[in-house]
């Protein structure tokens, strides 16, 4: 009786130790690709891709269920970066990209209701009740989250204006 109890206890303890050590040293980490893709995404959780936030989109993209080009605010640049990271072939010309966009408040339509303020994931809209709101260009990601809540349709997206320091010499025509 005692011998049986002892031998089973010793066996159990030894195997448990082996399992515990193996669990520590042979652990399979969570998919690193997901974390890296999430890092490339804008992180504003605007939801335009149809997934629950950027983390959800990263899981879907890494699993191959969504295209790397599914992020509208990220545009071509983010799509190409993700495709390169995942080693997926992506035709740059096929991505519909109007270039970076910015939200613009039409001052004659804004009634100062503050609804867009709450919807902005980056706090890029400033305003107070019954005061005209405005968009901080440097903070706006052009995610369009503010378009829907506006009761007067005063907000629209416009292409980011080209300024002198940001001008890029056009590519010469190919020979």
């Amino acid at each position, binding site marked *: 009786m005692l011998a049986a109890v002892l031998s089973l206890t010793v066996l159990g303890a030894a195997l448990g130790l082996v399992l515990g050590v193996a669990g520590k040293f042979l652990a399979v980490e969570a998919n690193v690709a997901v974390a890296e893709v999430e890092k490339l995404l804008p*992180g504003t959780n605007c939801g335009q891709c149809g997934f629950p936030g950027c983390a959800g989109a990263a899981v879907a993209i890494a699993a191959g269920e969504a295209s790397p080009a599914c992020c509208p605010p990220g545009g071509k640049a983010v799509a190409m970066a993700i495709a390169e990271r995942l080693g997926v072939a992506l035709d740059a010309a096929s991505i519909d990209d109007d270039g970076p966009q910015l939200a613009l408040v039409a001052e004659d339509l804004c009634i100062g209701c503050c609804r867009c303020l709450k919807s902005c994931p980056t*706090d890029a809209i400033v305003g107070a009740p019954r005061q005209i709101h405005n968009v901080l260009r*440097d903070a706006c990601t052009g995610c369009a989250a503010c378009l829907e809540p506006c009761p007067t349709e005063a907000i629209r997206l416009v292409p980011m204006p080209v300024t*002198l320091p940001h*001008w890029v010499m056009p*590519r*010469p025509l190919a020979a």
Partner: protein
Amino acid sequence: MGLMEKCFGFSWGVHPADHKRPAADAPVRVMPMPERLFVPLAQHLGAPALPAVLAGQKVKKGERIANPQGAVSAAIHAPAAGVVTAIGEIPAPHPSGLPVLAVTIEVDGEEACDGADGGPPPCDDPFALDPAEIGRRVAQAGVVGMGGAAFPSALKLSSSKKAGVETLIINGGECEPYLSCDDRLMRDEAPAIVDGIRIMLHATGAREALVGIERNKPEAIAAMREAARAHGDVTIRPIPVRYPMGSEKQLALTLTGREIPAGRLPADAGVVVHNVGTAKAVSEAIRHGRPLISRLVTVNGGAARAPGNILAPVGALVADVLAFAGGLKEEPARLIMGGLMMGMSLPHARVPLVKGTSGILALSAAEVDDRAPDPCIRCASCARACPMGLLPLEMARHIAADDFAGAAGRGLKDCIACGCCAYVCPSRIPLVQYFAHARGRLAAEERARLRLDATRKMAQAKSARLAAEAREKAEAAARRKAERAAAAAKAKAAAEAEAAASEEARALVDA
């Protein structure tokens, strides 16, 4: 300099026809003040200056109209007395023709004296000043590099002092075809240039100054030698005629034999390079307290009727300068600001002159080759011409396929955009345009990345804030609930006690 170069001449660069004369031999003409001046606030590398005047304000000649903002910036002064009529956008002197913020001054002809407020105080003995004080005064005068890149000079002086630079190299190479403003300046103002060089030696703590002048400017070499005779620490060194000899790295290599490592600053090789025009501007600023408000500009090219050098105020329109210089023989096929090889093609002549404008070239149709480029035949002429030892044909091949990272890996960052490769290309491929395009795209990608990081942080901050607010609200609600419960319990206890007391009282009464 390597042995090969000593025996067989230079292995890099090109030797274009210089077209410098007769413009270089014509005496300097002083341009009268035009009716209006348009002074851009971004004339230098770095952050644009912040306007310090209001529309409608009267300004004196030399008065400071914009202050530097940020670490790399320069002050801007009124080139003439007048009234500020507007601070707004005007077309920039840039190939894109995009707007730039500028102060418009309606000149009223009242010429105030030099050294007006805003500039540094005049000084008779600059060598008694602290080197840091010289840097401050140069900054006050808004002096920037006059060779074209327009880097704020005060910064270069103070950083050289900190880096312990040994040799001050003065660039009198002027290797760009058609340009002769530095040549003319050295012939006419050699004593002032040498004085400026000695002030810069004092400010940087360098032991000696080497002035490199290409051998195609014998008059300038003679004038500078004469002016430098009395000063042992300033040596005039005639250098071979070779484009791009006026480039910082090539000039330092030729004069000192020291190579500036890729991706590093000249200070890392113990040298600092300034232009002769900058030396003159430093002397003017320190000795006479004159801010940088005018400069010598070469007007040249086949379409210009009377090529020559013009002393023009900063902010004058290119069209006005061209008209004063004698007008145009024909409609120019191309208008270039700067040199022929590295200058910028201008969209039109209604753009202002800036501190870094060395020349205005009105090229005739005969001087411009507008034929379409042919395919690359991989002759490698460009690789032989490249002064930086790069492979322009390979870089362009990657850029044509939108592989900017591949081009960067082949040394795009080391490219000095001198244009030697495009000059020698038998297929007339616009190689430099490819490189500029790739640089712009890489910079845009970098900006987008930084922006993404910043907005991600903002989004995280907002969600953290919302979570904290929700938590606080929940805690407050819990607290209120607990308080209510406590109050209710207290009330109940009080009621019970009262009931007990009244019971007791009744018992007493009964008793």
